[in-house]
């Protein structure tokens, strides 16, 4: 029990708990909540929180609880998908480039330079522009910008490990690639890759919110955090509590990821 607790630092625990609570909120609402996030009731716009609408209603009288939960589910799903995809590609290709070297290394290096030649958000916006309002292209765009970091880190560490005496002795004793990777490379990668994944989660949540905010991401009536903020902004004076909700949810999501990513001192 004590060892389990010590696996993470205090701030990492805080981050993990924030994320778990958000996940619980999003999933429980889906399982138990009855309100439809798209159902409008124009006579009940911008209501303050009440027994019927726990978090009030928005400018079309839609239940904010349902919309917020949908938006958080969407953000978490996107973060999970893009981070795992990026990490998978980054680690596999990074190990390949670091171990094999040669033309494959040069080719991948060229690819990485191309991705890095543009600021991430511009690339994501261009991908989002291909099919407006598409979740899949948003996901591809974010994964394409994220995998580069894993690749560079993994390639550098792998190169270093491949030339280490330990790995070379194991190789000369005749162990296979799988064993060499598990025994001599992965233990050095795991911690840093996990840190990058936590950071990447925050980055992808932010990226989706940014595309929603500049109005080129997902389209209404989808509940998406950035989109909700920009749609609710005109009503800040009448219903500040409604505008505050997506802002707080976004803040907590990113804070959770960033805290989870802090290294143990």
């Amino acid at each position, binding site marked *: 029990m004590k060892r389990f607790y010590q696996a993470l630092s205090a701030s990492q625990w805080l981050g993990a708990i924030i994320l778990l609570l958000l996940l619980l909120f999003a999933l429980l609402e889906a399982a138990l909540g009855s309100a439809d996030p798209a159902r409008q009731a124009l006579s009940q716009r911008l209501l303050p929180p009440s027994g019927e609408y726990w978090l009030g209603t928005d400018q079309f009288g839609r239940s904010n609880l349902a919309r917020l939960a949908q938006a958080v589910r969407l953000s978490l799903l996107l973060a999970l998908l893009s981070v795992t995809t990026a990490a998978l590609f980054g680690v596999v290709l990074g190990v390949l480039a670091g171990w094999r070297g040669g033309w494959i290394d040069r080719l991948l290096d060229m690819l990485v330079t*191309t991705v890095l030649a543009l600021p991430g958000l511009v690339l994501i916006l261009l991908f989002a522009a291909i099919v407006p309002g598409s979740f899949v292209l948003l996901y591809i765009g974010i994964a394409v910008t994220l995998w580069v970091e894993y690749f560079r880190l993994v390639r550098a560490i792998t190169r270093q490990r491949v030339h280490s005496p330990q790995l070379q002795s194991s190789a000369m004793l005749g162990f296979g690639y799988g064993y060499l990777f598990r025994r001599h490379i992965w233990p050095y990668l795991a911690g840093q890759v996990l840190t990058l994944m936590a950071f990447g989660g925050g980055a992808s949540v932010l990226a989706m919110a*940014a595309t929603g905010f500049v109005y080129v991401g997902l389209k209404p009536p989808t509940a998406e955090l950035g989109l909700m903020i920009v749609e609710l902004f005109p009503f800040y004076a009448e219903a500040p509590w409604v505008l505050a909700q997506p802002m707080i949810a976004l803040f907590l999501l990113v804070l959770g990821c960033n805290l989870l990513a802090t290294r143990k001192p």
Partner: protein
Amino acid sequence: MKRMLLKRLLQLLLMAWSIGTLTFVLVRSLPGDMAYRIAAERYGDDAITNAAADAVRAELGLQLPAWQHYLNWLGELLQGNLGNSLVSGDPVIDSLQHQLGFTLALVLGGLLVSLLLALPIGLLAGWQRDRLADHVSLLLSTLIRAQPVFSVGLLLIFLLALNIHWLPVAGFGELKQLILPTLTLGISMAAVSSRIIRNSTASVISSPYYQFARIKGLSRWQTFCHHGGRNIAVPVVAYLGIQTVMLIEGVIMIESLFAWPGIGHALSHAIFARDVPMIQGSALLMGVLFVLINTAVDGLCLWLDPRGQAT
């Protein structure tokens, strides 16, 4: 120096190629009736004829086979020919020239604000390592970093423009209207760079050469000027290169939030209107800005720390 410039030139070419390719995919994937729709927007609903639609199609090169169209597309791009906006029909270059000034004002202002905030805060936190000032600055920076740039901007609007009416909410033209956007950009960048300055300061101050300078009798100020400044600056400036990404991304969000008529605003509007030449032009200019700032940072790094030059 030469190597660095060559690397940046390569980056410029790759950047142009990837934008060109993505916008090419974009233009080929426009829905089938796009030529008609653009013609309708340009000439009015009554005036569209097959001839007008064909003219639009020819302008976009949609009648050519894909590979030929692609080569033409990249060729035009290489010659710096960005074409005309599909919405207004004006040359893309003209509107970009107009917008560039606004974006540059925002970028320079934001950099200045972030420097003015991050330098004193970072130095103080580095000096007071693990004491109150350090903890407070870490907390503030964590809280700001957990928000997207536009949330920071919204909070500033609530605080400074809507509650106490000090500053105008949005718009452009007056200097006063530049304050909120630059403040937003500066604060969100300073949240990161103040921590970099803090780390760099803390490590320089606790280094043997710094301690020795103090022991041999230099005053605090002399030690800082001769042994501190430049050594602290090297990692900070190197990090500026990474922060350029933040800068450009921040500009896109802030221009959209404050209705600031710069390139980022043009980019998101063009994407919304599916105005492909305008998307290409504004993304390209953003990319050029990105590469230029990176080159300037590289140059500054070499000037501060010429040791790397020999290789």
